[in-house]
């Protein structure tokens, strides 16, 4: 069901990624999914020493390699993009890589989302109307990371709700999402459901509620997302 149209600016993908990057703590080991999550690395202060994991078998991604000017062959992230490793990076096979994931060794994972529910359930691998979709490593990463953050647009293309009471698309993992960063809000999830903590500049709590199917509790510390 589409949400009512609100004629206010939504944050571009880069600013969602920038806000997520500020959430990362010094020394965190972090897995980034494809899409908006993948942009988080570009906005993470190198001084934090955050180490990024690619589930195809690389711990320690430095930056992208320019296609056509490959410096290091066969060095890719999980989106099949050529990357450079950091000094001190570590390579492993898929079984070891997912032992890191499943074993709870990642401090944070940031994934995209199609639906996030008030009980922390995540659906992010099969779009409605499609019979075949790839789950990749999302189910393992969502179940295994100590903190799971979702970075996504608040509403689907036609305005459909993505912040929902219960997921209706096939689930990736249940009860795992801790925080959601969207183009209009930052929400956390606890035993009582969504808590609205931050809004995009110019947006009110009522505006964000109107774009969400699930009921949002409003934090007493509600403030604008800091984009400075």
């Amino acid at each position, binding site marked *: 069901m589409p949400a009512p149209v609100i004629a206010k600016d939504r944050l571009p993908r880069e600013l969602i990624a920038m806000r997520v990057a500020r959430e990362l703590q010094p020394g965190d080991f972090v897995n980034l999914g494809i899409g908006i999550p993948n942009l988080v690395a570009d906005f993470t202060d190198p001084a934090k020493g955050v180490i990024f994991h690619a589930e195809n078998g690389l711990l320690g991604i430095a930056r992208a390699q320019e296609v056509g000017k490959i410096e*290091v062959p066969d060095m890719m992230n999980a989106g099949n993009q050529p990357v450079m490793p950091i000094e001190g990076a570590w390579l492993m096979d898929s*079984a070891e890589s997912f032992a890191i994931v499943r074993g709870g060794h990642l401090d944070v994972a940031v994934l995209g989302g199609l639906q996030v529910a008030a009980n922390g359930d995540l659906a992010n691998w099969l779009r409605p109307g499609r019979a075949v979709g790839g789950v990749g490593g999302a189910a393992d990463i969502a179940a295994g990371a100590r903190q799971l953050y979702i970075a996504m647009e608040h509403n689907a293309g036609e305005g459909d709700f993505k912040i929902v009471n219960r997921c209706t698309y096939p*689930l990736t993992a249940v009860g795992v999402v801790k925080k959601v960063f969207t183009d209009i809000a930052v929400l956390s999830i606890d035993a009582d459901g969504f808590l609205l903590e931050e809004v995009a500049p110019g947006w009110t709590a009522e505006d964000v509620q109107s774009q969400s199917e699930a009921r949002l509790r409003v934090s007493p510390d509600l403030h604008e997302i800091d984009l400075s």
Partner: protein
Amino acid sequence: MAIRPVYATAAEAIADIPDGAMIAMGGFSATLGLPQALLRAVAEHSSAKDLTFVGNGIPQGFTGDAENPWYFVDPSRVSKVICSFPAGGSRRGGPNIYETAFTDGTTELELVPQGTLAERLRAGGAGIPAFFTPTGVGTRFAEGKEEREFDGRRYIMERALYPDYALVKALRADKLGNLYYRNTARAFNPPMAAAAKCTIAEVEELVEPGEIAPDLIMTPGIYVHRIVVVKG
């Protein structure tokens, strides 16, 4: 010494794959760590049918030819694919022939979370018939599977995979079959090599035993049964 047979061509190395075989294909994607020559030989120089493919993606790769960039094992010969990315080719502008085959029932799709797939292979090579994992609990990946609680958390039981053949790609082999992979091309290759009854290694370089230092060997030759050299 257990010198491994070196085949002159990929087609000869895969020639005995029979109808009904389960084939694991290594690497991560159509462009990373996939044994292109071996998989293409199965696609073009084998008539084996009723095959089951195990891999991160579908049995499809790049030819390197701009005119005709994709090759794939015809779905009419493939009864089942066990993978985590069943639609990789079509998303990159390639043919969506497998998406069609999965939808019309020509080929059965068993969609498996990537880490569960890796562990099912690792378990197969390590003598572990089944294991419990938190991945997939409460989702369609748990359907039909035994569920148990350990220390207050729910887990589902997953079974090991025992492929008949593994097609793996390494940068370098020595004549004992010890393998060295380059960078992230490693991926699914080592657990598949260990899990399969017959592992065929496609390598760019073949060297004498000792030329890969023991502590740089990533797949020991005990898991490798055949070698074919294909220049990169």
